[in-house]
């Protein structure tokens, strides 16, 4: 599980996230550096699983920190810092997926307007075809990619990042009961999609 920073910060005497953001709000840029160091990898893993592309994910994480830098005074201590930063990253990731969807629609319409024939790959001759039905990380990522953003967000926060249901409710901004049922439905959908992907192998 990726979310280890909250464990780390309690086992030694390092400042909490909330102390760091308070220091940063008072002009201590070193505190910002520490927050970046603490969160860059966990956020990257979250966003990477969300958008499915590493380079894009890194760009989104950078944008997340840029927004933190520019909007530091918007943070209020009523929320945990981790839920706040994950909210920003999650929203940016969802925006990217929406942008990608629009781009895909555009490219399809462009494709249809030209009279090009397109090749349907012959599955029998696909050298990458793996007859082994072991569930690989790649197939799992493919199944994650098939989930809708709202399912993807909660299942990644719960099962990959290890957030509690209460924290997810704060990050996503929905009631606790909705989070629980959404996580359950997301798991069932992922299971279904994975089953389908395995059958297609």
């Amino acid at each position: 599980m990726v979310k280890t920073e909250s464990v780390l910060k309690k086992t030694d005497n390092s400042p909490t996230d909330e102390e760091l953001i308070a220091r940063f709000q008072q002009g201590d840029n070193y505190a910002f550096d520490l927050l970046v160091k603490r969160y860059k990898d966990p956020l990257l893993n979250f966003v990477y699983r969300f958008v499915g592309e590493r380079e894009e994910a890194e760009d989104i994480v950078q944008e997340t920190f840029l927004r933190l830098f520019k909007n530091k005074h918007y943070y209020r201590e009523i929320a945990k810092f981790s839920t706040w930063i994950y909210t920003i990253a999650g929203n940016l990731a969802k925006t990217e997926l929406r942008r990608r969807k629009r781009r895909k629609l555009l490219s399809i319409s462009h494709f249809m307007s030209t009279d090009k024939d397109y090749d349907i790959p012959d599955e029998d001759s696909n050298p990458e075809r793996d007859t082994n039905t072991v569930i690989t990380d790649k197939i799992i990522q493919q199944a994650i990619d098939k989930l809708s953003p709202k399912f993807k967000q909660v299942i990644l926060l719960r099962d990959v990042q290890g957030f509690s249901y209460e924290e997810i409710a704060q990050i996503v901004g929905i009631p606790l009961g909705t989070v629980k049922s959404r996580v359950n439905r997301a798991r069932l959908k992922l299971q279904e999609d994975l089953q389908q992907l395995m059958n297609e192998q």
Partner: protein
Amino acid sequence: MISCDTAKSMLSDYLEHTLTPDERSSVEEHLSQCHECKRVYDDVAFLTAKLRALPAIQTSEDFDGQLRLRISGNYAQTNHPVISKKGFTFGLSGAALIAVITFFILTTNSPEPQPLIQQSSNQIINRANQVSSPIVRTQSVSKAAPVEIANDNDSLNQQPQKVNQENIKLVDQVKN
């Protein structure tokens, strides 16, 4: 026995041991008799474990440097020159088009068309500046001499026939 839908809706709670003892035993009873739900439960349990064990990735080595650049504002200038240039070019084209249309409207709707060609360029500039639209004030209409604009073939390409007829009319008016 509870239905398959009810059992499935309780799978995560069952997996995470958050059900009451009664609820738990009702799910267990269902799973012991429904092979399909048992298979789904096993898959979900396997998947959640697999998700937790997905290999973690790390940010690239130059992440901090890139972030610093981005924060200092250099990122936008160094990485998106094409987009900026496109936007700039498009903006210029749009401004030129607006300037041509504005000039066209001014020349066709003017209540006193007769002295237009005879006016000095300064007079035209003054008239353009009196119009309240910011578009007129900002772009090249005020800078261009009227004769130059009237003979500018590029500008006329927008509506060649109409503009040429207007020019002819203006020339006739001057002659008269």
